[in-house]
């Protein structure tokens, strides 16, 4: 039995797989597809036939990706590379394989938070939001134990962020120098507790110890200090044996 919603979701996944990963672009294409399906059905086609015709008419994912790639503004790409160099994102910070799955997922989420907040960089604030939202993350528990409401922290981070307009993909957003510093501190902390990989808890410590970023400043306003956090992190790591 043909299911339009499922078919549209599958079509969207194919677009995503072809590299069209800007959700606003996908929304716009989906909106077009739906209009075309509706029109087809009004003219007497079955849902399935209308869907097939609309998919054909909108074009192949690869050719669309190629056209959208041409639009990618050169100026911003170059600016991004320049910022990347300034931010020392080439080689200076630990490689992804040095992180635990949960820490990697946190950094992925940070990358998604950035464009949602209209930022063209990944800052300490985005990494902190990643830590608060990552699936099965321990940081909300750690904060709760220190008497801090994670939800309040999230609200405070979003409030401290200045908004400016940016639209673009998420793949090449550079880390700010502060995030790179936090990542290096996280690596040092992981080594100090003889962990093979940098876990999400180390990332959290890294953000705090970095000291000047939005994340550190917000955490400080909640009275989160390095000493207590390190103890909490150590006991958390002891509990989960090796980190998340």
């Amino acid at each position: 039995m043909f299911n339009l919603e499922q078919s549209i979701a599958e079509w969207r996944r194919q677009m995503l797989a072809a590299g069209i990963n800007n959700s606003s672009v996908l929304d716009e294409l989906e909106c077009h597809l739906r209009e075309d399906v509706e029109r087809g059905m009004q003219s007497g086609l079955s849902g399935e036939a209308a869907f097939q015709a609309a998919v054909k008419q909108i074009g192949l994912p690869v050719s669309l990706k190629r056209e959208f790639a041409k639009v990618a503004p050169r100026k911003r790409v170059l600016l991004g590379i320049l910022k990347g160099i300034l931010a020392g994102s080439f080689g200076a910070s630990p490689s992804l394989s040095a992180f635990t799955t949960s820490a990697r997922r946190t950094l992925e989420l940070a990358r998604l938070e950035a464009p949602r907040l209209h930022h063209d960089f990944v800052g300490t604030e985005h990494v902190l939001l990643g830590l608060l939202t990552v699936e099965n993350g321990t940081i909300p528990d750690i904060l709760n134990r220190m008497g801090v409401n994670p939800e309040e922290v999230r609200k405070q981070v979003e409030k401290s962020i200045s908004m400016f307009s940016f639209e673009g993909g998420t793949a090449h957003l550079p880390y700010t120098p502060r995030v790179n510093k936090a990542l290096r501190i996280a690596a040092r902390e992981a080594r100090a507790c003889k962990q093979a990989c940098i876990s999400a808890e180390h990332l959290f410590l890294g953000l705090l110890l970095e000291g000047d970023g939005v994340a550190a400043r917000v955490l400080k306003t909640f009275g989160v200090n390095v000493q207590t956090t390190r103890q909490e992190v150590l006991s958390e790591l002891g509990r989960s044996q090796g980190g998340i």
Partner: protein
Amino acid sequence: MRTMIERELVAASTEPLILSLLTKGESYGYELIQEVKRLSGDQIQWTDGMLYPVLHRMEEHGWIKSRWVEIENGRKRKYYSIKKGGRQILKEKREQWSLLSSVFSGLWKGQHV
């Protein structure tokens, strides 16, 4: 027999066509495509998806701007409208196309191919 417009000509005329349609008011991708099909008697055929990269590039150039509008039951549409810069570009394109058109008209006057 149907005379389809060649690929190169379609490519060259897409931007002036979009700008001209938007001078009539705000519109969205699907509607723009339908309008071009209707006006050309189905002889200008865009691969639908290809319109969007063009729209995005034109927005990047500052010729047009866009906004999401909620239609019914939570669905939304991205509407485009022309900006001052777009009107200026359209004026230039129009002069070029008019010039070409009048050159051809002059050459072909009284000729039967």
